[in-house]
């Protein structure tokens, strides 16, 4: 069952062609990876899905629904979660508040009830806190840092908090942009484990951009390879690994020819 369909999407900024006729589907419950050299357009795809960029051509379908007219802030309510390449945590808030912010679309407190607070807003906040503590903080093992300001955290923990915030969005699809960038082997393994747990326990579909090939090959169900805004190929990790165009793009044309002969 397709949860996400990208249909013939093209994007350019002025004369620069960022994406050319990209089409792929993401199946519900799978981990779908997008890989490619820097500048290939990977983040732009996520930005189009999130609604931050508008494609010049083509459409995005979420659960069969055409997203073209739906503004970015409404896509979160549909079930689209997101983490960012450069950590986009809010430095003015603690870890807990950042996570609570993720749940924004699912809360109802308005200006008036917020000013009064006691009553409906308080109940909502307490329920939210309980849910976050049990489902997210416990799950991602970040109890000890929850009251700290995010700017005081180490890089790896910040990435994890960003993941926690994305989970608070109660996403059906989680778009992750380089979740293990800059992490050492141990942190990468932890994050990979969390991602797999998210898929299995919460049945969340994951679309993942990464450069860490080992991790991609280990945890993804299917992979799309991008180069200069064009799709080179897609398929299972094994299929993609053997594809000559992919080898050429990553290791060079000569290596590809050598491997073909050998």
């Amino acid at each position, binding site marked *: 069952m397709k949860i996400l369909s990208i249909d013939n999407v093209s994007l350019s900024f002025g004369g620069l062609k960022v994406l050319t006729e990209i089409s792929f589907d993401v199946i519900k419950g799978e981990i779908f990876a997008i890989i490619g050299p820097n500048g290939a357009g990977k*983040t732009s795809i996520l*930005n189009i899905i999130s609604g*931050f960029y508008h494609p010049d051509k083509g459409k995005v379908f979420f659960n069969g629904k055409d997203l073209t007219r739906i503004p970015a802030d409404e896509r979160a309510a549909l079930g689209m979660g997101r983490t*960012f*390449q450069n950590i986009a945590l809010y430095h003015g808030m603690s870890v807990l508040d950042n996570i609570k912010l993720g749940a924004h679309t699912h809360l109802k407190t308005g200006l008036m009830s917020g000013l009064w607070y006691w009553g409906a807003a308080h109940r909502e906040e307490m329920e939210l806190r309980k849910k976050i503590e049990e489902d997210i903080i416990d799950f991602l093992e970040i109890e000890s840092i929850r009251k700290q300001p995010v700017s005081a955290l180490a890089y790896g923990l910040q990435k994890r908090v960003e993941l926690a915030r994305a989970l608070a969005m109660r996403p059906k699809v989680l778009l992750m942009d380089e979740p293990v960038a800059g992490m050492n082997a141990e942190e990468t393994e932890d994050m990979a484990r969390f991602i797999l747990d998210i898929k299995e326990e919460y049945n969340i579909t994951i679309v993942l951009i990464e450069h860490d090939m080992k991790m991609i090959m280990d945890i993804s169900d299917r992979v799309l390879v991008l180069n200069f805004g064009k799709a080179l190929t897609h398929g299972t990790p094994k299929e993609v690994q053997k594809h000559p165009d992919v080898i050429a793009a990553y290791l060079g044309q000569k290596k590809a020819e050598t491997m073909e002969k050998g």
Partner: protein
Amino acid sequence: MDIFLQLISSGFLVGGIYALIALGFVLIYKATNIINFATGEFMMIGAYIFYSLMVYLKLSPFIGFPLVIIFAAILGFLVERLILRHMLGQPNISIIMVTIGLSSILLGLAEIIWGSSFRSFPPLFPRKPIILGEIVLRSNLFYGFLVAMAVVVIFLLLFKYAKVGIAMRATANDQMAAFSMGINVKTMFTISWAFGAIAASLGGIIIGNIGGVQPTLGHIGLKIFPIVILGGLDSIIGAVIGGFIVGIVENLAGGYLDPYFHGGVKDLAPFVVLIFILLIKPHGLFGTKEIERL
């Protein structure tokens, strides 16, 4: 019809002078992404220093002008080095508020040093008004316009052809790229502030020559905002054209509407225009909408 042409002509001339000041503002914004709320105060300080040099030291304008340019460059340099350097990396709103604070400091200092009363400039240009057919143009305004345009042209040529100008444009366009090309970005910031201060100060002298100088001269500097919003915050051409348009519009508005409101319309009109521009075309005539990276 005569009144109409008269208003347009004087408006055009004053607009040219505004264009110079707006240019100073846009220079700083393009190079450093900082909105300089103290532009008006730079104007005012330039006028006061020139006044002091002429009246207290009895120097000739030919010496006074270059001296003010040097003072202004030093002022710009000091502001950038002493204050703004420390703000690198802080959010934009903090930096904007620093320039607001700076404008307050300069305003207060000027009043303390020179007092709050109005001073009129000793005449710089021949007094005879310029007469073009039915239109009478005050000599201060006319010659002031010529000087302002000369300075604008010099600046524009500098940017297009001189090495430092090209370096400034490169920094304005893409700091990272300029840096990797070996351009000392920090120096470019300082130079941009120096040039911005120079442009504003020269504009201040010209305006001071037309209408006299008092600490509130800086308020004229607030008109920068309608001008650069109309022209586009990051557009040099926009600053110049915006200056002319605002000069003409305010003159027309003042000329026709002042009687109904007992005065003051001229200074207000640009801001009413500003509100409308924000509604219709907020990036102005020539401004570019930023492409944000996520």
